[in-house]
């Protein structure tokens, strides 16, 4: 083989490689991103938002009251931007509360609905939508494009944050799993799903601000409490109690890690 032939082969090889790089496979996560963009104008979470708004403004419960006087942290009845500052400490309950536990407080105190009645259906199912979940979808929608600003000032808030941080890395259960087993490394995935690394600011922000979200595969809008509940199911932990101190503490840790980003939900997931 003479030199020019060798050169030709190298040239062909070089062309072949560059072609492969250009035509290169679109990664699965890019395809999902494309799909999300395609349907971003048609997020069925909008319907849950509408349902939630209706519930918010409709008098119900034994006291026949609406939730329009509910204080989500920015004063009675202020919904706009409230989610971007939750969880936070509430003086009246002397507790740090996330959105759903606060809604629970409002529904029990303002409307007089027994807590057990609400927590009996904390999440939507195929056959029946959950009121508290729809209410949460409505409230978060009112914080769209609002900068996440969850404060850790009050001693109780600091305590919740610290507990949440420890819970995130707490390994237990039959699989010896922690949240951090899957969510403390960058660029890893389970099947098609890229896993956010919560110790990476950007990852944490994009993950947290895209929940609650409509799950196409389930045909339902899912709340943040549901997200945590399902994470614990996947870890084979005992099922966490709805709106419990532990789930609020973990939410606190995750919300703080998303501070500074614009809230983008309700999101859309595969």
């Amino acid at each position: 083989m003479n030199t020019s032939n060798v050169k030709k082969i190298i040239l062909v090889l070089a062309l072949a490689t560059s072609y492969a790089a250009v035509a290169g496979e679109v990664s699965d996560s890019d395809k999902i991103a494309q799909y999300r963009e395609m349907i971003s104008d048609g997020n069925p979470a909008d319907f849950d938002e509408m349902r939630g708004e209706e519930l918010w403004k409709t008098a119900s419960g034994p006291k026949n009251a609406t939730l329009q006087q509910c204080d989500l942290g920015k004063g009675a009845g202020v919904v706009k931007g409230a989610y971007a500052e939750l969880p936070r400490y509430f003086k009246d309950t002397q507790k740090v509360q996330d959105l759903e536990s606060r809604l629970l407080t409002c529904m029990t105190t303002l409307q007089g609905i027994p807590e057990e009645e609400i927590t009996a259906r904390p999440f939507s199912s195929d056959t029946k939508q959950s009121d508290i979940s729809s209410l949460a979808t409505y409230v978060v929608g009112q914080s769209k494009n609002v900068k996440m600003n969850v404060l850790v000032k009050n001693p109780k808030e600091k305590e919740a944050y610290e507990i949440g941080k420890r819970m995130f890395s707490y390994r237990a259960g039959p699989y010896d799993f922690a949240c951090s087993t899957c969510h403390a490394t960058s660029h890893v995935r389970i099947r098609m799903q890229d896993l956010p690394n919560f110790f990476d600011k950007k990852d944490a922000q994009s993950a947290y601000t895209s929940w609650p979200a409509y799950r196409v595969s389930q045909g339902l809008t899912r709340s943040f409490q549901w997200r945590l509940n399902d994470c614990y199911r996947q870890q084979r932990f005992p099922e966490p109690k709805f709106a419990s101190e532990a789930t609020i503490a973990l939410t606190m840790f995750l919300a703080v890690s998303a501070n500074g980003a614009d809230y983008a939900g309700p999101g859309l997931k595969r």
Partner: protein
Amino acid sequence: MGNPMKIRAAVKDGVTEVKILMQHNMETGLRKEADGKLVPAWYITDVTAQHQGRTVLEAQLGISISKNPYLVFGFKGGAAGEKITVSWVDNTGDKRSDVAEITA
């Protein structure tokens, strides 16, 4: 009567793009409940879109379409302020019709 649709229509360079989000369970009739009973089929069969009395889209949907279908299409013509009417019929005979205004 079904639940309301969300319709957006915008005209750009003489083409109106219509985005329709429908609220429907779209049950295939092939799925079983936990008790083993079949969930009865319940899905949209026909979608029609009309612009100023002229039919601009006729679509036949079936069981392969997901729950809460989202449909986007374009047609030539249309001006801001004009109305677009979208209607669907499902296999149980249920109907829904909603109107949206075209924006620029």
